[in-house]
């Protein structure tokens, strides 16, 4: 079979209907692009927050859903992202965008270092270690008052315009989504999925899976840091709560609620979760209880998540 015809045949196979196809996605992005015209500050701020958490949730799903590595410490990278922007801004007057670049680089290094230890000690130890490392960073942020302001938190440089921040977040949201989509369709993405599906088979086929897992960890960490940096830009204020275990837990919930192992799932999950949070928080102070109860219910009855459910019902052919 000739290369060209083989390729054509393969593309044919891979071309399966996406959820509504690309048209729906373009429409959604277009709607988001003109939203600031219709929304006032509060609404726009809310959408900004939702979008940056969508980025965070996507990054976690790369680990959990696509590579099969459950991390309970993803807040670590969010926090690195947020604090790097804030600290570099405060100490060196560094522009937040440059700070964000530095944040991503730092997150990558930290992820490589932590990943090296966490992934060697695989299996159940992985989740324990990711939690432990994240908590270590949390303690550091609390204790290092001189630099981070401790429990009081610290101010972060911003772009000066809520609208500009919004568009930056939207742009990065689209870029991260497209990037992840590309990644998952590329050989590396296939390897990640292979590791999730059957790691021993991957090893017996010649893949040094440990290295790829560290790579997944690094990519997820970098993208998580992007979300954290955007948070600092958006919020103008950073406190140790960006490193707290509850954030890691909430990120996991967003991913599972939306649909683990898909790209659209975490987006839906983050959106639903945050919107619920804003609504419910005004009614009751028992938000945590609801989060926990919802998570338990999700794991028991709704493991495929919202997008998973939608897909099974109406689009059995669809791919993420």
């Amino acid at each position, binding site marked *: 079979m*000739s290369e060209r015809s*083989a*390729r054509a045949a393969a593309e044919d196979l891979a071309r399966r209907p996406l959820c509504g196809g690309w048209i729906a996605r373009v429409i959604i992005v277009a709607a988001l692009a003109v939203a600031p015209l219709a929304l006032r500050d509060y609404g726009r701020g809310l959408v900004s927050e939702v979008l940056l958490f969508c980025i965070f949730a996507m990054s976690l799903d790369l680990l959990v859903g696509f590579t099969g590595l459950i991390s309970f410490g993803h807040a670590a990278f969010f926090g690195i992202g947020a604090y790097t922007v804030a600290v570099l801004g405060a100490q060196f007057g560094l522009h937040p965008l440059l700070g964000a670049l530095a944040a991503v680089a730092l997150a990558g290094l930290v992820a490589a270092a932590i990943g090296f230890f966490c992934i060697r000690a695989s299996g159940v130890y992985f989740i324990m270690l990711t939690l432990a490392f994240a908590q270590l960073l949390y303690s550091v942020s609390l204790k290092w008052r001189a630099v981070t302001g401790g429990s009081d938190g610290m101010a972060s440089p911003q772009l000066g315009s809520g609208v500009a921040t919004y568009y930056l977040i939207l742009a990065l949201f689209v870029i991260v989504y497209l990037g992840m989509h590309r990644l998952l369709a590329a*050989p590396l993405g296939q390897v990640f*999925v*292979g590791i999730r599906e059957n790691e021993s088979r991957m*090893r017996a086929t*010649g893949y040094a899976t440990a290295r790829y897992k560290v790579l997944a960890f690094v990519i997820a960490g970098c993208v998580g840091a992007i979300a954290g940096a955007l948070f600092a830009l958006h919020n103008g204020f950073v406190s140790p709560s960006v490193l707290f275990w509850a954030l890691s837990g909430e990120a996991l919930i967003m991913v599972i609620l939306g649909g683990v192992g898909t790209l659209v799932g975490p987006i839906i999950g983050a959106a639903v979760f945050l919107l619920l949070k804003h609504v419910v928080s005004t009614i009751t102070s028992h938000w945590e209880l609801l989060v926990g109860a919802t998570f338990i219910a999700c794991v028991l009855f709704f493991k495929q998540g919202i997008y998973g459910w939608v897909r099974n019902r109406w689009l059995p052919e669809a791919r993420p």
Partner: protein
Amino acid sequence: MGAQSLAAGSATVSLLRTADLSKSFGSVLATDHVSLSIEAGERHVIIGPNGAGKTSLLNQIGGQLKPTSGQILFKKRDITGLAPERICRLGIGRTFQKNNLFNRLSVLENVRLAVLARRGQPWNPYVPVTRFGALEARTVEILEQTELADRRGEPVRSLSYGEQRQVEVAIALATEPELLLLDEPTAGMSPAETAHMVGFVAQLPRTLTILMIEHDMQVVFSLADRITVLHYGRLLASGLPAEISHNAEVQRVYLGSAH
């Protein structure tokens, strides 16, 4: 048959050799000082009653299990205790006794992963995997070789058991091994499927050496150039099929009873 020229012995090359290989699990000796030699190009079959340590032996060669003592030499190189991925890259491919596939992925995706490891750029994060024409062509080539081409789009878990065994072999072949380890390739298959698999293995080129575990005596005697018998982890006998079938101890322990 190739067996005759192998029996001549002089010019043959030992592709794989185990030297005094042992594996103990606590007080249980799964592999008891096994010294075995596999010649290049031969079809070597390991037989033995259940619990004889056949799969443990294969797992040690394939890297899934670390030996307690002894050595495994592949092309004169010590591969004892190496990681499975290293051993695969050195030229040893394998199938598993229980189907060890990517159940939710399609047949094509299963085999493509193996081809990607061998011939592609697995670390590439940007170019869609379907754009690599050579990769796809090679994958389809193997699918056609193993008669799975028309099932390529189906998820592996929807295939029949026999077809899944075929996918096992396809993946192993895609890693382009010099030595192929087959762990009970016909296990659980119907007579028709078994005959099919035997025919398939028989026509594989002699550039590929095959070491397999089998229970079905018909399969064993129709494929084997040499046979090794294991019993409670020990190597009981090793030699030509005719020698083995006339070996009194082997008869007593294994061939006499059952099958």
